Structures are given as C-alpha cells and as structure tokens.
C-alpha cells in the first residue's frame, strides 16, 4: 500500500470515529471534537503534500530540445534587426552624453570650407590629398571626416563658454573616402568626432577623457598609449591606442589604434570666433566600424553596407 493510500485509509478511519461523538456525554463532546479535527487536519495536509509530490508523475514530459510538440505547428516569432553600426553608434553617443557632451550630427554633403579651410588646411596643401575626398560637380564634398563639424560645433555652442565655461560636443556620422573597397576598406563608414573647449583644457585632460570613454565602453580598466600624429587642425596632435580589452580576447601587450586627437589649432578656434589667447581646446575623431568589427570579430567591413539579411539578421 502506498503512502497516499495509507493516509486515505487513515482519513476514513477518522471520519468513522467521528460517529462516536454522539455516544459521548455532552461535556466530553467538545474536547473529543477538537481532538478529532486536529487529527483530520494533519492527515488532510499530509495527503495534499503526498499528492503534490506525485503530481509530475501524471503529467506527460516533453522534449526540451525540440522546437514544438509532435504534430503542433512550430512557433515563429517575427524578428526584426537593428543595424550593428547604428546600435554601436547609439551606445557611443550614450556614453559621451552621460559624460557631459552634447550631440549633433554632420551633413552628408559639405563644402571645401568645412572640410579643409576651417580646419587650417592651407589652400592647395598636400595634406588635403590624404583625405581622398569625393567631389560633386559644384565642388561640394561628402565629408571625409566628422571634423567638418568642428567649426559648426564651436559656433553653435559658443555661448556655453559664457554660461558653463566649456564647449563639449560629439558628432557621430557618416563619412566618405575615395578608396577601393576590400575586406578592410570601405568608401563609406562612420566616425565620431569630439570637441572640448575651456580656459583650462589640457592634453592631459584629453587623454583622461578618452581613456574614460574606452573604459566605460568596454566596461573595464584600460591602459592607453599614444603615438605622434599630424593633423593641420590640431597642434600638438597624436594617435591614441588602447590595450586590447579582455572582452575582445586581449591578453595584454596588444594595442589597438583607436583614434586621432590633439589640441585644437589656434587658427581653428580663431576662425570660429573663439579667442585662442583665452581658451584651449581638444578634439578627436575615431571610426565606429572598427569598434563593431572588433566586438563581433568580423573580418569583412563590406557586410555593413551590403544590405544582406543573412548578415543583418544576426543583430
């Protein structure tokens, strides 16, 4: 006899014993009743427990590895996808915004002034060739770097210097270079520019901000180092490298070149109406595509603009 059956038999016995109550003298009936009730409750609760313990035995188990029960339609959930470049850009924007940077966007057709002149490239300087710019028949330029927005950002937020003592802006956007496309080169890609101006801005602050950004981005402490760079619009100029973070499989000693940066050239400040005798600034710009490629271990940059759902549905 199973435990449950024993309990049920016990319950029957108790129910039968209840009948004895009428043979008892009235003064004893109360005591007897209470005693029987308490016994009955104990057995009922034991029965519930025993039944619960046995519940799963009476339910049909299923194959958790299968997508559906036999003869049932396989459930499909319509899944959309966000482009990984846009997702990453949003994350970058979020971090800079949290750090205190305003966010504006560049425009995809710009001019020689914003691409070069406002950035202290002298007319006809060979440094202009390094940017492999496209041109329209009118001479407009699809920007080859987000630095096209430095001049606009400095002007737009100039009043902040009066109110908050600083200009802090980042500019994420699409840029274009006349380059042959291969697994590691795209003529269309994304960058994020940063601009900071105050009376006391230093190169040490620039490296501090950038290190902090990458630490927030990768969620860990990171080492940085630099190498000299040349940009007509910053002086001094540098390239920033970070030690490959653990989340990307870095084991220390591997360095990733992340962006170009420098102290804003006094001519760039002057041209935007900011007195370089009073204010210093720093600026930087780095690629977004590379962040995504590193993150997902992608080997071909051409997937991004391919429009292939086989690729995009992974995101």
């Amino acid at each position, binding site marked *: 006899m199973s435990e449950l059956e024993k309990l049920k038999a016990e319950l029957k016995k108790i129910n039968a014993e209840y009948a004895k109550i009428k043979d008892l003298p009235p003064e004893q009936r109360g005591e007897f009743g209470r005693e029987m009730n308490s016994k009955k409750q104990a057995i009922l609760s034991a029965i519930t427990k025993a039944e619960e313990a046995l519940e799963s035995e009476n339910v049909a188990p299923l194959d958790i590895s299968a997508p559906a029960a036999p003869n049932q339609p396989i459930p499909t959930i319509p899944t*959309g*996808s*966000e*482009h990984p*470049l*846009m997702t990453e850009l949003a994350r970058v924007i979020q971090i800079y*915004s949290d750090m*205190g*940077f*305003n*966010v*504006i*966007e560049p*425009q*995809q*057709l710009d*001019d020689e002034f*914003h691409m070069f002149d406002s950035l202290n490239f002298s007319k*006809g300087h*060979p*440094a202009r060739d*390094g940017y492999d710019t*496209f*041109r*329209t028949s*009118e001479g*407009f330029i*699809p920007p080859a770097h987000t630095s096209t927005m430095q001049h606009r950002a400095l002007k737009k937020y100039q009043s902040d210097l009066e109110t*908050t003592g*600083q200009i802090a802006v980042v500019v994420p956007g*699409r840029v*274009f270079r006349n380059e042959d496309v291969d697994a590691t080169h795209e003529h*269309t890609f994304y960058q994020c520019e940063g601009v900071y101006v*105050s*009376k*006391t801005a*230093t190169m*040490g*602050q620039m*490296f*501090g*901000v950038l290190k902090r950004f990458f630490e927030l981005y990768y969620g860990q402490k990171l080492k940085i*180092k*630099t*190498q*000299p*760079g*040349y940009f007509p619009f910053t*002086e*001094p*100029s540098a*390239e920033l490298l970070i030690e490959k973070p653990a989340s990307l499989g870095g084991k220390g000693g591997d360095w990733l070149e992340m962006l170009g940066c420098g*102290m804003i050239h006094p001519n760039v400040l002057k041209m935007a109406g900011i007195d370089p*005798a*009073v204010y210093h600034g720093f600026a930087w710009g780095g690629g977004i595509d590379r962040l995504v490629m590193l993150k997902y271990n992608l080997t071909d940059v051409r997937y991004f*603009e391919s*429009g292939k*759902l086989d690729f*995009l*549905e992974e995101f």
Partner: protein
Amino acid sequence: MRISLNEIKKYVSIPDAVSDQELITLIGSRLVEVEEVIDLSPKYRDIIIVKVVTAEKIPDTHLTLCQVDAGGKRSDLAGEDGLIQVVCGAPNVRAGMLAVWLAPGVIVPQTYGNENFKLGTRKLQGYESNGMLAAVDELDLGTDHAGIAEIDPKTAQPGSDFAEVFGLNDTILDVENKSLTHRPDCFGLIGFAREVSGILGQAFTEPELIDPADYQITSAQIQIDPELCPRYSCAVFDLPKNEPSRYLTADAVFLAKAGMRSIDPMVDLTNILMLRTGQPLHAFDYDKFLTVGGTSELNIIVRAAKEGETLQLLDGKVIECTPDDILITSHDVPVALAGAMGGKNTEIDASTTRVVLESATFSLYNLRKTQMAHGIFSEAITRFTKGQPAAMTMPVLLEAIKLLGVAPTLIADAYPGGESKNVVKITTSAINSLLGTNYDTEKITQTLTNVGFSVAQKPLKAHKGKSGVIASFGLKIASRASGEPTEGNTEVELIITVPAWRTDVHIPEDIIEEVGRLLGYDNIPLELPCGPFTGTEIAPMLQLKAELRNILSNRLAMNELLTYSFVSRNLLEKVGQDVSESYEIVNSISPELQCFRQQITPSLLDKVRENIKSGHKKFTLYEINQVTSRQAGLDADGVPVMSTNLGIVCLGDFYELKADLFAALERGLKVDIEYAQIAPGSEAAKRYPYLEPVRSAELFVGTTRIGAFGEVKDSVKRKFKLETPIAAAEIELDRVLEQEKTLTVDIQLSKFPAVERDLTLKTAADMPFGRVNETIRSVLQGEQLIYSVKPVSIYQQPDADTKNLSFHLKFASPNGTLDSTQITTIIDKLTVATAQIGAMIV
C-alpha cells in the same frame, strides 16, 4: 618610408641600456607610427663569402663546375682538398673571384617571407652542387641577374659573413609617411636621427656642413620666380670617368635597404644624398642643356608652364603641362618638370661628358598639383611636397661635389629671399598649461636644444594672483585649477630660434608639440575636465531616429539596412527619378556610385531581389539616412540642404504597410496621420514616380506633407526583376520632427464600465471606408464619450455593388454608467448619421 636602424646608429649613439625593441617603441610613441619592423638578420643568416678557386666549363652546357673556398666554414661539405663543389650557371663566374655562397639549408633571400626556398645539395648535369652562388637579385639587393654578385676583395675574405660585411644584420622600420607630412627634415636619415637623439634626451651632433665661402658662387646664370622656386642651386662639372663598379657595393646595399635600386654611380650618389639629407638632386647633360637652349652659356630659367606646353620626360612619356606645373628651362626651352622628372632632351647617357647638377626647392603646392596631374609619385617628389627647406640646397650640392671628387667649372645659386631668422617666443607656463604638465624651464630648454633649436631665456616680471595674458604672444599663463603660475613666481620667456630645416615650426603651439612629443605624451598625467552639471542636449533628430529604430526593429520586426549614399544613374532612371536633380560625384569610384541619392526607397528596392534569392520570403527593410536633391537648395552655409528620410520597402501590399505605418507613426510616435489619395500625373505622383498612384497615399500631419507610401508600380518592379507585391514608403523625418514638437496626446480612461457593440453597415461598393469610420467617430465624439472604433472586416462578394463594413465599438461616459436608454440613443444617432451618407446598419 624605410629607415635602417644601423644607419640611424651611425649618427646617434644609442645607450646600452636601450634595446632595439625599446628604441623602436620610443620612435613609435614619440616620432612616427612604425607600421612594420623588418628584421633582416634571419633573411641573410649563414650566407658566406667564398673564393672561387677553380672554375671549369661543363662541356655542352652553360654551367661551370666550381670549387670554392669557404674559409673553413661548412667543412662538412668540403672535399679532401678543403674545397666545396658548386655548379654555377652565371657567365661571369671565374677562378679567383669572391662570390656569395648560399649553402645547403640556406633560404634564398629573394624568396624569404614568401615561398622560403631552401637550398639543398642536388645534381646538375650529373655534377653535385652544394647550394648556389648568388646573383644580386637572388640576394634581394637589386634586379641584376646577368651574373653572380662579385665581392671586392678589399672588403672581405673567404669565410666572411656576408651580412656582417654589408651591414645586413639590420632592422628596417617601415614608417607611416602621413604622420610626417609636415616634417620634411624627417625624410632624410640625418633628420630622422636627430629626432631619435631628441627622444633619447641626447644632444644631436650635427654632421659638418661644407662652407660655401670656400667656393666661388655666382647667381648670374639663373632666373627664378621665388613663389615657385625659392632657391635654385647648381654646379657644372666634368662627369667623373667612374666605371660602374663590378663589385656589389655598400652603396647598392644602402639603396636596397631603402627600397631603391642602384643605377649608375652618378644617379646612385644623388639618391644616397637624398636619402641622407632629404634634399633631392637632379643631373642634366650639360652639353645637351646648352644645345637645347641654343646658348653657349648656362641660362636656367625656372618658370610656370604655359597651358598646353609639352615635354617628353625621361620615361619617354610626353606630358601636356598645366599652368600649375613648374618647368626648368634652358633659355626658356623646357628641360625638366620641376621636382618630378627630368626631360628626355637632357638625359645623361653614355656620351655625356659634362653635367649640371641641380639642388633646388619648389613650391609644394604646385608640385602637389603636378603630382596629381601627371601621376608621378617618385621618392623625390614625395620629399619636395613636404616643403624642403631652401637652406639645405647649397650644402647638399657641395657635399655631392665633394663625394664625387670633381672640380666644378661653375657653381650658381639663386636665393632671392635669403636666410631669415625664425623666432618663436613662449613661456614655460604656457607650455605646461596646454600640455597639463609641470616641466621646468631647464628641461624644456634642453629638450629643444637637443634637436637644434637655440633657446634664450628671459625672466619676466612675476605674475601673481589671477591668470593673465602675456601680450607678446597671448597665451594664458599658467593654468591648472588655481590659475597660479606652476613654478615659483618668476615667469620665464623662452626666445627660441628655429633651425632652418624646421619649416613647420611657426607658432608657440608648434613648440609645445615639440616639447610634449619629445618628452613623451605618455608621460603627461591624466586628468578629467570638471564643469558644471548642466545636462546635455542630444540633437532631436538623433532622438527621433533612436525611437523609430526601436519601434521599427523591435516592435514591428523590420530589418534595418544601411546602403550607400551614392547610387547609379541607372538606379535613378529605373525608379523614374530625374538624374539631373542628383548632385553628381565627379570622381566616383564607379558608375554605381555616381549620384547622391534623392530618396532612400530606391536603394532599398535595389536590395530586395538578392535577399529573396538568398531564401528570405517575407521581410520589411528600412533605412534612415540623409538625402538631398538640387531643388532642395542651399542652407545658410551655402551647402545643400539635407533631409533625413525614412525609407521602407516591404514584401506585402498597401494595407500591410499601412498597418506598419500606423503602428510606427500613430501608435509609436503619437503623430496624427492623415492620408490623401495620389492622383495620376499630380505633383505627388511625380515626387514618388515608382509608386502606383492609384494604390498609394500621401501622408500628412495637419497640413504638412511628410511623405508617401503605396505599392510599387509593376513597370518598376519588372526593372528590378521582382514579381511579388511590394509596398514602399518614404517619410521625411524633418517634417515629422516639426510636428512632433507641437503634438499633444490626449489619453482618457473611464472609471465607468464601457459598452461594447459590433456594428455592420452595408454600403455601396465604392464607399470609402474612411468616410464611414469618420462618421461613426464623430457621432461618438459629439456625445462626449470615451470611445474606440476598431475595424473588424470588410466583406464584399465578387462583382457585388455593395459591401459590408464591420466595426467593433467600445464607448463609455466619463460621468457615469450608461443606462439602456442612453445606449439606445447613441445607437439611434449612429444609425441616422451613417444612413445619411448611405451606410445602412444591418
């Protein structure tokens, strides 16, 4: 650019404590990005110089059987006579010469890093050959394959280690030129070495320059335009009768390490001097020079080319000049394209007896255009376009004369501008305040003088209290949070004389860069700026895009695409857009990327077929990006007005996309959308030429047009080889944004129970659904009810002239529970109102 570490070490003594690896790291962090470090030692390992003792022709072959003396090396391969047998196919092999032996087990240097061809002992025509005797090309030190390399017995003996004799136990740094764009001095080994010295904190010992005072120098023979050619120096002399050496020379190896090839002694010398000093030289045949110009005396005129003027260059090509080109002329007859290439008419050849050697500097702006116009990317023009200093032309010319050992019959120099002193003033605290450092005056001074700046210190009056501005050059003094000078109370002004080779240093910030870089940016203490907590602003368009992406991808299961901003004319034509409205890229990569797109939708349509082909059956693509067209005009900056559009393409019909748009715009963004039919031939139909107008609608918010959507025309689908129903939308988000700002959302919930009723109305087949829907809504609205009206079905028998429209109504009063009388009244009103428009409740 390839830099030999051994060559650098000739100019700088590297402390023992600094390993090559550390030196390279320092160069990478303080001078230039090192793209690749090439260790030559393994490539030239175990290569031995041998003496060919006997060389006997093998009959009926081109081969020679040689016995070579390896000075006791590889005795395992030697015969009883101590000699090693090698079969050689080269015509110049002969007994007594020193040659380079690649022993069995050695990798042929030419194949190193590629197929790594390892030599063995094998039989040739029945004769055993131990490895081979190498030609220059096999050693990867040139292109010569005419015979085996011969070694000068003055430099080596049998058994000498080849790599040691020729300095091939070397490390080559391949450095990124771009980061030295402003540093002409670093395009010469001397300049590069000076920087290496600087980053090691050592004073650089400048190589001694020849004093021009020892020479008679005239300027009479040269006319230059200083704008185009700040300085032109040249010398005329008899070409030394130096036969090309039959030996493999140290010069040839030097050139090979820099990635250049040995040509002849004269050209090699100019190239070597260029590699060392950064100053390119060019040699003309003097007699041809005179003949071409029709003069008996040298008359050099450097001038801008005339439009259409032609010149045949050394490589045989005839170029048509542009007015940006600079020409070297002999009495006004062009003889060279300045900075780029000499002319065929003054080429040095076997008959040349006298030469003119040119050492000049040209406008880098003009040469850049020359480079682009004629596609000439030589080592020389690479240097000229960095802006070689005028100061260097004469010293390098004199060095060439010295090395050639010639006595010039004429030295001429035109330098109208002359030397000018370049002085920059800055204070110690201005340097520190920009870098965020605390370097003292002495350290800064030392750092600068190490690399050839001369620095005079001038104490200024003490600045106390608040930060001020030094009038002389206007950088804020001191900074750090306190605004106090960083050291003591005495401010020191540094009066810095910039060396002539630093054509890039003009302003105080240039000096700050030198100090920061040479002392190491990595040594700057990190800090964070501190500003007030004012919050930040994210551009409204960015926020809208983020919101939309979330709705479209995550709520509506669409796929976000990014496609190129440039499209083909063909694509524009396929969708019926006016090609002339697109901004045209004049230097596009391909015809596929020639026009800036006017809308997003065509790019998405272009991606549908390949996704169907790869097995996707049902999908909706969208992209949010910028577009423009000529008619959008220019903004206040004078650049095209861009608009940010949302394009959607779905494998489905009008109504499926309508449901998506409703969910995205009305439910998602809370924008109240109105639809307007597109009439064929209307402006709207022209704006969206790929939409079938009678199956499309324009979208409005209030009176503002925000876009359109509908089914894609069959004729357009055919052009994309598409058959399934396809609907597309193009929404102008700038317009949506304007509306969104003014939108108020009124959501009411009643605390009293709602009445639910299903209503079916019979109407004429051509009754617009919206008219019935609006009528029902206006009745409920008029009763001041809280209500919803949901369409349930639209039923129409085939060919019937009526249809049944069913709605599910839910309404409640904000004031109390509706009783049956009130409900009847409402239904009666609905019945009357709908009947008036011809919709009968059934």
